[in-house]
């Protein structure tokens, strides 16, 4: 199984969720994060001084999925999150050794 970590623009969350549904992925975990990279944060002003904000708000999505759908999942995320602008984000794929559903104790793919 794979553990996919995607960093996207916050307002793209719903689009990505729907895109993943189309490839059969019905579960995910999202969290607010702050990103640093090529895309620079806007400046903030405060009483006549300007402050560079280094980190920009991003959404992180974590998805555990079967090896089989991993590539399609990545593709789906990419298409849904893409705005052709710097800062659209990244998708990271890690290997997932095991998964367990707390409620039932099912393990492996059937736990997803």
């Amino acid at each position, binding site marked *: 199984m794979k553990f996919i970590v995607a960093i996207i623009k916050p307002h793209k969350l719903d689009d990505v969720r729907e895109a993943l549904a189309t490839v059969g992925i019905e579960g995910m975990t999202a969290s607010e994060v702050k990103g640093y990279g090529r895309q620079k944060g806007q400046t*903030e*002003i*405060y*009483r*006549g*001084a300007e*402050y560079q904000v280094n980190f920009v708000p991003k959404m992180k999505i974590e998805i555990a999925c079967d090896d089989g759908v991993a590539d399609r999942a990545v593709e789906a995320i990419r298409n849904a999150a893409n705005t052709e602008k710097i800062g659209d984000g990244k998708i990271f794929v890690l290997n997932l050794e095991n998964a367990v559903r707390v409620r039932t104790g099912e393990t492996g793919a059937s736990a997803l």
Partner: protein
Amino acid sequence: MNGADTAWILTSTALVLFMTLPGLALFYAGLVRAQNVLSVLMNCFAIAATVSVVWLVVAYSIAFGEGNAWWGGLGTSFLSGVGLDTIRADTTLPETLFFMFQMTFAIITPALIVGAYVERIHFAFVVAFSLVWVVIVYAPVVHWVWGGGFLSEMGLIDFAGGVVVHVTAGVSALVLAIMLGKRRGFPNEIQPPHNPGMVMIGASMLWIGWFGFNAGSALAADGAAGMAMTVTHISAAAGVIAWSAMELMKYRKASLVGAVTGMVAGLATITPASGSVGPIGGLVLGLAGGIVCFTITQFVKQRLKIDDSLDVFAVHGIGGALGTLLAAIFVSAALGGAGLAEGMDTGSQLGVQALGVVVVAIWSGVLTFVIATVLKMFVPFRVKLETEVQGLDLAMHGERGYHNL
């Protein structure tokens, strides 16, 4: 006793206390890091409570007791001799009410100084300093200007406290900020206000409360109160417009924190003049206050590199002084003002005003230095670097501002 005047000053007393609790407290607390929000609120709240008792015990007597040209003596300590039916001399108000109304000024003045030392000062020092300061610095100045002391003898125009409140607080703040030193990361890595909305709520309460501050200083429900309220409001509005215009020119953006800071600048500037000028005067003073305070704010922080953290000197000290001087000009009937006192011309009035500002500024600065120098031998002055980094809320008060986990 006049019931109508009493009704209005009862209300004004509530309004001015509202300026500090929670107005000023929120205004300041929203400007700091989330880890220091409670310490700022606590500073203001503790000052309000402790100063109230000191005001009863001794400060009111020093300020408004019979006394002489320099102080009011200790005869009215604990309001001795003041009963239900005692009327305050030269007013139509019960003396208990006059005592309360003036107390709210004694509370907000040291609370204004909080802005200078947030995010790094030790709580014990805040309380100790504020109490001593009210007795030694503030109360005598009140006597000089409003208690029949030498500055009132000379004809100083300070209707609601440009000198008494804003110059004393502003100069003392600057001195404390220098003595205490900069916050870690100042000036480049300072974080922007953690909650500008909270700042705006506090600012709005200050605006409303200032009606009690200035229109209440008429000590009556009459045309003078109506005019004071009018010029106060117009000056606040003009301050907002001036500060926002400066920001628009500089950044093509007008910020909320900037707008409310301009409001405070406009209000501090009109305060001493609010019993003397007309609507046009209010408009001009507000614009002048916004522009001048905007400029000085940047000068102090970026040039002088002094971490008067929330700009108490630049906004209150400078605004109050500016208004005190301009009062001499816009008091003239030709400009819609109430007219100069007889025997005064603009020049002589301006001289008195300047003298008042300078004398009080020196008095406040020197004594603040002395008080702080002595106190820090006995009370911790600045917190440890680690505490400053973590924030004061947990370390000083055992609480955190925001719990979501």
